[in-house]
Each structure stands twice: as structure tokens, then as C-alpha cells.
């Protein structure tokens, strides 16, 4: 079975992803979606990227699997520049999940999940076994493989999206608002389920979210972006308790302030906040 291990080179660091002065502009360098980003992400970590709309979260994520190409600087994966080979070959080794899922409507659920292994030339029987394994992993009924994506609920579709991203056994998962379209209850449950999968499989996950609570509760490390710059970077506890930047502090305070208002509502006392 193909394995990402073969790609590893001895770089003297356990960083899977390394960004070195990476910039990206969509308007000819007048404004930057990502500006001079330096970043290292270690194996096994769960990193959340938060920030306002337009702060460059998605761009930063897509620079890693080259859905967006950097204008300047180098993105390294396992120590190797991502620009070395064709982008589509690179992407077969990286799981990618996004809010709209984008299941192929003309394929069954099983064919959707097996698409990357098929591109990699896995034997048919091995793909079938892997699909069955993944359906169980993301808690879908075994017979859902023959169904059409149109027959699934939103939560089920997102599970299929996660299974599809995991199919070729990638080490690295890139997730762009993966649970953003789901109702809060389902969103919470699926997030925790994914965190379990992340731990069980020893994945490295980079997840974009606008939801600070989700970032705080799921991630080991949080990056805060503002206007293309990484303005804060640290574990949830550190950012919740001692962020230097006032805006970052306000952002990280949001869950606590909301919780206080909810408590006040329950207690029957009014809050002016």
C-alpha cells in the first residue's frame, strides 16, 4: 500500500508543514490575502485557524495543498517544497474537506469515497475493503455505499466527505469550515467524533473555522489571522488567558462573554453587555 512515509526526508525537524515567508495576493500585490507567513506545524497536532471573514484563513489552508499557488516564499511538506511536482499528485496524499463537501452527484457514495485510491491505482478489492472500513469509521450504515449522495442528509454527506478525504490514508488533513453547514447539535457531535478519529489515526489536522468555541474545544493550537498576517499563535489555554493583542483578546473572550449572558438569562438577572 502506498504510504506517505516514503516522502519523508531527514530535515532535522518533525514539522510536517513549514511555511517560510509565504505571500499571496489576488490583486497584483496591492493587498495581500496572506502576507509573509512563517509557520511550522508538527506531526500529530490539531491546529485551528481563526479570524474574521477575509482575513486569509482559506488562502493559507489552500497554499498547503496548492489549490492556491504562493506568489513568494516556500511551502514545505515533509521538508520538500510543494511546488516540486504536479499539484494533483501532491493532493492525492493530503485529505481535503470543505464546507460544501462537493460530493460527485453522478457517483455512488462508495465511488465517492474510493475516488482517490482509484486515482492512485489501488486494486478494486482493496478499495472496496477500505470503503467498508471508512463507512464504519464515520458511523454510516454499511449499505449506504450503494446510495446516491442526493439521498443523504447534510450530516451524512459531511461524514462521506470526511471518509473520502481519509480514503488514501493521508497523514495530513486540511479542513475548511468542515462542519459550518450543520446545525449546532450535529456540529458539536461530528466535531468530537472527528477529534477522536484524528487521535486514533495519528493524523495532523489543519482546520479553518470562524467559530472560536469550536477552535478552543477541538484544537491543540490556534492561529489567529488578521489581514493576511498571523497575529497570534498558541495553545487554546494561553490565548484564552493571556493574549497580548487587544483584538485577539476580544475574539478569544467571546465564548466567555456569551456564556456569561446565557448564565445571566438562566439566573433571571439582566445583563447590560
Amino acid at each position, binding site marked *: 500500500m502506498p504510504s506517505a512515509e516514503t516522502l519523508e526526508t531527514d530535515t532535522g525537524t518533525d514539522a510536517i508543514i513549514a511555511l517560510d515567508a509565504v505571500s499571496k495576493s489576488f490583486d497584483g500585490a496591492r493587498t495581500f490575502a496572506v502576507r509573509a507567513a512563517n509557520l511550522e506545524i508538527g506531526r500529530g497536532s490539531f491546529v485551528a485557524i481563526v479570524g474574521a471573514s477575509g482575513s486569509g484563513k482559506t488562502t493559507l489552508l489552500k497554499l498547503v495543498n496548492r489549490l492556491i499557488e504562493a506568489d513568494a516564499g516556500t511551502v514545505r511538506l515533509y521538508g520538500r517544497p510543494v511546488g516540486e511536482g504536479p499539484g494533483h499528485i501532491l493532493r492525492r496524499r493530503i485529505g481535503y474537506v470543505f464546507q460544501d463537501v*462537493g460530493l460527485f452527484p453522478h457517483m455512488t457514495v462508495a465511488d465517492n469515497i474510493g475516488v482517490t485510491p482509484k486515482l492512485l491505482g489501488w486494486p478494486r478489492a482493496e478499495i472496496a475493503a477500505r470503503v467498508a472500513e471508512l463507512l464504519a469509521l464515520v458511523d454510516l450504515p454499511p449499505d449506504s455505499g450503494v446510495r446516491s449522495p442526493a439521498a443523504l442528509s447534510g450530516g451524512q454527506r459531511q461524514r462521506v466527505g470526511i471518509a*473520502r478525504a481519509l480514503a488514501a490514508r493521508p497523514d495530513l488533513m486540511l479542513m475548511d469550515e468542515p462542519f459550518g453547514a450543520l446545525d449546532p447539535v450535529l456540529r458539536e457531535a461530528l466535531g468530537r467524533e472527528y477529534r477522536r478519529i484524528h487521535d486514533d489515526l495519528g493524523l495532523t489536522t489543519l482546520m479553518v473555522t470562524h467559530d472560536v468555541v469550536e477552535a478552543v474545544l477541538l484544537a491543540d493550537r490556534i492561529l489567529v489571522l488578521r489581514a493576511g498576517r498571523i497575529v497570534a499563535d498558541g495553545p487554546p489555554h494561553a490565548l484564552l488567558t493571556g493574549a497580548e493583542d487587544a483584538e485577539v483578546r476580544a475574539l478569544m473572550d467571546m465564548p466567555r462573554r456569551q456564556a456569561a449572558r446565557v448564565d445571566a438569562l438562566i439566573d433571571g438577572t439582566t445583563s447590560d453587555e
Partner: protein
Amino acid sequence: MNERLAAAFRVLPDYLGHHVALSAAALALGVALSLPLALAASRSARLRWPLLTLVSLVQTIPSLALLALFYPILLALSALSQRIFGVGFPALGFLPALAALTLYSMLPILRNGVAGLLNLDPAVIEAARGVGMSSGQRLFRVELPLAAPVLMAGIRTAAVWVIGTATLATPVGQTCLGNYIFAGLQTEDWTAVLFGCVAAALLALVVDQLLALIEAGAARRSAWRVALGGAGLIAGALAAAVTLMAAGPPAYRIGAKNFTEQHILADLIADRLTQAGDSVSQRTGLGSAVIFRALAAGEIDAYVDYSGTIWADVMHRTDHPDRTTMLREMADWLRREHGVVLLGPLGFENAYALAMRRDRAAALGIRSIADLAAHAPSLRLGTDYEFPVRPEWAALRAAYGLRFATSRQYQSTFMYQAVVDGTVDVISAFSSDGRIAADDLVVLSDPRGIIPRYDAVLLIAPQRAADTAFRHVLSPLVGTIDIAAMRRANQMVDRARDKRTPAEAARFLAARAGLR
């Protein structure tokens, strides 16, 4: 009535076979050209607008004109290829029809293809990139399958257009279901016109339903529907090919222009060749300008033309020698310049003539074109499509100072009706037309002798000049058909009651001339 229907059914395999083969080839070529273009246009916004505008422009050209335009284009290309590579190709028939119909089929396929490829869900495209598909894999595994239903709808529209428009291929010499319509229109045989329309409509309906099956199959991802529809289409195309191949290439091809007399004479010639054991096909409904070039290029083997037409249009002569000198000089010139053999005059003349209703002419006291000149400014002229641009008309106008109040053009059948019902006062008639006597018209005399002679002459293509068997079969026709016989034969076909087919009129002519 039964005889007319039976005659229509006899030629159905030939007409339908050609129609199916032509439509299938044009549609296949249209799809093959449009798909890559649709793909390119969906990828490049800069290409999209010019391409879609261009094919839309093609669509605005009247289909008959588009078909006709390809004849001179292909003729020029063939001459060029002859000069450079030493091989030409036929500019008449299949190729111009194929080229025009292919262009015609492209708009719906291209437009739907672009729409189908551009309106895909962006999330699905992002997912296709995200899972690691190359741009080729994305196209074949995701984009084309998802655009297929919209694309198929475009192909369906194109198929119906092509089958309908293919009926207009008759005038460029391509046999098709349009032969019923064009011949029927000329000879006022409405059975034939209706037969052709119904046959084309039924064909379009069947093909449309088969394509609908494929479309439904593509939309519902149902392989058996696609297979069944595809099998039906392939079976139809194969049946057409087999029919055409079983018939084999005809030994001789006889040409005819698009009017009754020409249909009768082509049947007369074809009958004689068939009786002599040769196989014959007819290229009927050819345009007057097209037919001589087709003969000179060897695309037809023989046809009947008129001396005045050759003299003025082909030789560009403006003098008026006597009949014997004219025929001798013409024969010499044709042989020298084109290798065409003038076998001889058939014995009658079919000249342009100005004609009026007898009562109207008498009331105005008009007997000659000179008399007409004084009244012309208050009279309405009706002509066929060709007359207003012919040198005879220019010469007549100049010589007699003719100026009419209005001038209208008609398909010749309707031109006669227009003068009978008084919509026009004067028409450009043909002297051998049976309707002159039948409609009680008078032909105005030409006291200054401006209108040249129009002796019907039998012309033979260069490649048949040395074919003595062919000449032997045709030469008995020379000098055997007088104007009265020809008028009667024309009248048999054109009249509204007790109508006869051109073939029946041809047999009448043969019997009258003692040819069998």
C-alpha cells in the same frame, strides 16, 4: 392519385437513404467539431464570445443560401487542389450539403455544451481538484458526465434542425427527401410535396425520440437507455449505408434544372438509358448557374440546356447571329473550351417571353413589347427569380424603354397564378410552357428581335464524349420533340386536374416522337 403515391414510394429508399446518410454525417461531424470548441470556450472567456457570435451569425444566414454558397467555395477549393496536388473533388452534391449542415448543427451543440460545462456546481469542481484529479481526469470523470444531459439536449436540437434543413440540399445536387418537395413544387404535385414533408418530419421524430432516450439515460445514469438509443441510431445509419451501397454507383448521372420541362426531359433521357440496360441516377433541381459547371466538371453526364442561356451566360456573347451560325459556333466553343459535346437541338425552343392575360392585352390594345412600353409605367410585372438579373431583361429594357410600376418575383408556379388572378399584369413566361395555352395567355411579339433564341440542346460531359454507346442511346432524341409536344407534356404535369407525373409525360413524349 395512387400512381403518384406509388411513384413516391418507389424512390423512397433512395431519397431516405441519402437523407439519413447526409444528416448522420453532418451531425457526427458537427458533434466532433463542437465538443472541443465548447470545451475551449468554457475554459477561455476570451474565446467564448467570438465563437458563440460566429456560430450564431452562421445561423442567421438563410439555410438555402448557406447551402448554395458552399458550391462556389468548394469549386474554387477543388480548382486550387487540382492545381497544387493534381486531384480535385466534386463540388456538387454531398460535400457542399455536408459542409453547410455541419455548420448549421454547431450552434445548439456549442451553446449547450458551454452552458453545461459552465453551470457545474463549483463545489464539485473544487472537490475534483481536492481529491487529486488532473485536469484531464476532472474533464472526463466529472465535468463531461455532469454536463452530458444539457449537452445531449443540444445535440437533439441540432439533429432535428439538420434533418429538416437537409431537405434544402436538392438544389446543390444532393439527393434527399427534399427532391419530393422541390419537384412537387415545380410540377404542382402537392402529393409529392406533402410526402416529402411527412417523411422528413417522421424521420426527425424518430431520431429525436432515440436521442431523448439517450438524454434520459445520461440524466438518470441509466446505461441501458443510452445503449438502446445509440443502437437505434447506429442501426438507422447502417441501414441507410447498406441501402445506398446495394444500389451501387450509377453508371450515368442525368442533370435537370428546377422546372417541369427539365424533370420530364431528364426522365426521358433516363428512360432510354435504362432501356438500354444502363443504371441511371438523376440530379434534379439544380440551379441554372450550377448545372453547366457541374457538367463541365464531370459531376453529371448529360442534361438539356437552352442555346440562349449558354450563349449569353456561359459564352458571354451579346451579338445575335442566325440560328445555324449560333448553334455551330456554340458547339465549336463548348468543345474547344470545356470538352463538352453539343449533341444537337431537340427540336423546340423555350425562350423567355413576356406574356399577358388575353383579355387584359386586348383591352389595352397590346400585341407586342413595343405596344407594352407605353403602358408599362402603370402595369405590374411578375417574374421568376432569375429573370430580373438576366441579360435578356437588361437588353429588353434598354431596347424598348420598359419601366413597370412594380416588379415582383415568384416561384414560377405561383407566377402563373399571379397573372391569372390579376395580382400582376405581365409575366416573364417560357415559350414552351403548357400554361400559356391553358391559362389563355398571349405571348407578346418582339419586333426588334432582342430576345435571343432558346433552342433546347442536349449537352454531354467531357468524360462521355468518346462513349459511343451513351451517344448512340441519346442521339435519337435530337430533332424529335416539337414545341406542341413539349407544351402538351408540360401541361400534363402542371395542370390541376388529371395530373400526370413527369415520368408519364416523358413516356408520352417518347411515344409521340415514335421512339419506342
